[in-house]
C-alpha cells in the first residue's frame, strides 16, 4: 500500500453503501489516486470489481481480512 492510498471506510454502510462511496471518491479525487474500500458487506467483493471494469478503472486487489472486505482500485481516467 502506498502512502497515497485513500481509505474509504464504508463498514456498516447500507445507504449509500461501499460502491457509491467509491464512486464519490473517484469523482472527487484526481487521476492516479488509489482507493482502498473497506466494507462489511460480502457483496462488495463482487459489486465493486464489476463496476470498476465497466467504468474502465483498475482493480489492484480484492481480499478479506477478519470479515472486512478490502478492495483496492486505481482511478485511471
Amino acid at each position, binding site marked *: 500500500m502506498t502512502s497515497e492510498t485513500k481509505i*474509504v*471506510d*464504508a*463498514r*456498516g*454502510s*447500507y*445507504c*449509500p*453503501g*461501499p*460502491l*457509491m*462511496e467509491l*464512486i*464519490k471518491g473517484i*469523482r*472527487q*479525487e484526481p487521476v492516479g489516486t488509489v482507493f482502498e474500500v473497506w466494507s462489511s458487506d460480502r457483496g462488495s467483493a463482487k*459489486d465493486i470489481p*464489476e*463496476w470498476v471494469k*465497466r*467504468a474502465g478503472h483498475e482493480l489492484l486487489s480484492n481480499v478479506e481480512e477478519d470479515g472486512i472486505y478490502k478492495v483496492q482500485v486505481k482511478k485511471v481516467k
Partner: protein
Amino acid sequence: MTRIVLLGGGVGGSMVANQLARQLKAEVLHGDVEITVINQTPDHVYQPYFLYMAFDQAVPADARRDERQVLHSQVRLVVGEADRVDRDASAVIMQDGTKIPYDFLVIATGSRPAPEQIPGLTEGGHIFYTEEGALKLRDALQNFQGGRILVTVSVPHKCPVAPLEFSMMVRDWLNQRGMESAEVLYTYPIGRLHSLEPVAEWAARVFPERNIQSQVFFNVESVDPENHTVTSLEGDTVSYDLLVAIPPHVGQTVIQRSGLGDAGGWIPTDRYSLEMVGADNIYVLGDATNLPISKAGSTAHFEADVVSANLINRIRGGKGSARYDGKVFCFIEAGADEATYIKFDYQHPPKPQPPSSMIHLYKLAFNKMYWLSAAGIL
C-alpha cells in the same frame, strides 16, 4: 460563560439548539451558557416539499417558516452568511467581518447540488432539489407533451429515496393526464435499482407492473442540451425529452474556505462521537459530514440527539461519551397513495416493509409535524 455556536440553522442545527435551550434552561438563564445559531437566511426551509412542488401539490410558502419562530426564545439567532471558521481564534467570521467566538462549535451547514460539475447539465436538465429548480420543473411538466422522461442520479446526493419517489409519482401524474404512452426511464449508478437492497428488490418488482423502464450502472458524465442526450461514464448514450437529474452534491463553500473539508467539501467526522476529526470542541452533523450514511433529515435528527446529549453532559462536567449508532429512518412514497419505510444502523441492515396507504397518510402527517420536530418537541 460557555458559548455554543451552531453554524447552520437547518434541520440539524435547529434541533440541537432547541434541545440545548430546553435542557440547559437554568444555565442559560443564569448567563452561564449562551446558544447562538448562525443561518444564512431568516427562513427555515423544509426541503422534502420541493418534491411535491414539482407536481404543484405544494407551493413555496408551505415549506417556509421564520427561523426565529422555529427556535426557542432563549436561542440567539444571527442571520447572515458565515465566511469562514477561524480555528486559531475559535471564532466564526461573518462576511461583514463580525467575529462570533465559540467554546463549542456545531457545524450543520448541509450540502448543495452542484449541477455545474457535469458539462451541459445546467442547460439541459431539470432538478427538483432546490425551490427554484422544483418550480421550473413544475412548469416543464405542465407543458410536457409526451416522449421520454429520463431520471438520472449522481453521487453523492442527499435524500436517497427522492429519485425513486419522483419516478413513481411522475408515472402516476402522466397516467392521470392520459399520457400512458410517455416513457419514464429511471437510471441508477450501481448494479441495482437502489443502494438499499430491499428497496432495490421492491423497485425491481413494481417498476415493470407500473410501466417504468430502468437502466443500472449509469453515472452521468455529460449532457448534450442541443441533441437532448446524456452520456454515462460507462459509455452509454441515452436520449430524452425531459431530463430530471439528481446532480452530484458538495459541501458548502464556507467549509472549503475554512479548510475543514475533503476534496468534496465534506468534513472528516468520527462516526460514533460526531466530533470533527482532530478537534474535540467541534461537532458535525447532518449532510456536512463525510460519513458513509444517508444524507437525510432523519440522519440529522438522530445525530442531533447525540450531539446535544454530549454537549449537555460536558457542560455539566462529564466526558460526553454518548455514541451515534448510525441510525437512519426513511419514509418512501410508493405512488398510488401508498408508502413504506426503512430503517437501519451501522450494525443492522434494512428489512423490507410492505407499502400501505396508512404509512402514506403518516408521511403526509409527518410533513406537517416536522415543525414540532425541529422545535425539539417531537
